[in-house]
């Protein structure tokens, strides 16, 4: 008889057995727009959208803006008891790119995460989602950087990977 009760519970809430976890989505690229560089130049796009340029000549109306990521916590069940979710965010190593007469390198990262105004690649930054009372809770944040471009010939589209890692530290019941 107890075995039958257990089976009924499992069917009524199949999600109760799912493990908690994090997902990270890349919502928007870090967009530096379109511009001319004669030989060397840089453009900085901050997490708050501020753009500053040095020795570059903007062309057209290409979109410019910070990268955006969303970390979503799924507690794995439909319990709505408030919890504080703590996870760490790491910007993994960012490598310069070289392609046909162009070199692009990112530096001086910043974000709008509390305590991570200056974002150092490889360093972990703790983020808290307080009072999470739903099955899933998320934190969206933006990342800016400075792009230095060296050009010896031609042009092209530079694309530099921005790998973001999120590790769950705790989900603490309040």
């Amino acid at each position, binding site marked *: *008889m*107890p*075995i039958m*009760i*257990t089976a009924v*519970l*499992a069917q009524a809430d199949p999600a*109760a057995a799912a*493990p*908690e*976890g*994090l*997902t*990270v989505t*890349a919502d*928007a*690229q*870090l*967009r*530096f*727009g*379109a*511009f*001319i*560089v004669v030989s060397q130049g840089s453009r900085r796009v901050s997490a708050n959208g501020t753009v500053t340029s040095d020795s570059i*000549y903007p*062309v*057209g109306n*290409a979109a410019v803006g910070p*990268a955006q*990521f969303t*970390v979503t916590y799924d507690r*794995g*069940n439909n*319990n709505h008891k408030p919890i504080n979710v703590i996870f760490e965010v790491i910007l*993994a190593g960012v490598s310069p790119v070289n392609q046909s007469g162009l070199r*692009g390198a*990112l530096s001086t990262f910043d974000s709008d995460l509390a305590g991570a105004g200056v974002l150092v690649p490889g360093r972990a930054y703790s983020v808290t989602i307080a009072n999470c009372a739903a099955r899933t809770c998320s934190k969206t944040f933006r990342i800016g*950087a400075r*792009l230095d*471009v060296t*050009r010896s010939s*031609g*042009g*092209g*589209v*530079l*694309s*530099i*990977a*921005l790998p*973001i*890692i*999120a*590790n*769950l*530290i*705790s*989900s*603490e019941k309040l």
Partner: protein
Amino acid sequence: MRTTSAIVLSCLVVLPLPLWAGTTGASATGAATANIVTPVAVRQIADLDFGMVAANVASAGAVVLTPGAGLAVYSGSARRGCVEGMDCPAPHAARFEVSGEAGRSYVIAAPERVAVSGKVTAPETGSEAQAGPPAVWIEALRFRSASRPEAGPAGRLDATGQDWFELGGTLMVPAALPPARYRVSVQVIITYN
């Protein structure tokens, strides 16, 4: 025995609600992108040359060089000043080559009106002196690109990033213009649009 089994199974139902999680990781890779545009370059191939122009002392005239048309059109007292046996260069529009990023459009900017100063060469010494007034003007500068001939001061670079355009204009020849060689440099600016 039955009671014990029931307790154990109940615990199994409750257990999936952890208070503390182990390290659970996730990752995503975004990208930073920039479109580095090949700078546009312009190279002069030929001057805008109105050739040898003659005009009456008492009345003004004009010479029109239309880009793409090839021929000079004279009006008023202005006429071609080259006579039989003289080695005179044919009037022609200026020509420029443009290079840059394939497929990108560009616009051309130049002054609307340019004053042209004259130089007189002394036959005895060969030295040059500034010609006196009145001034000669070039007005109504007109452009015609190979890619967009009807677009005026605009063009579009082809698949290899090349184009060319011609520049013409109207030379205003005032009355009583002293004979001289009139020459001026005009800055032409090309920008992507």
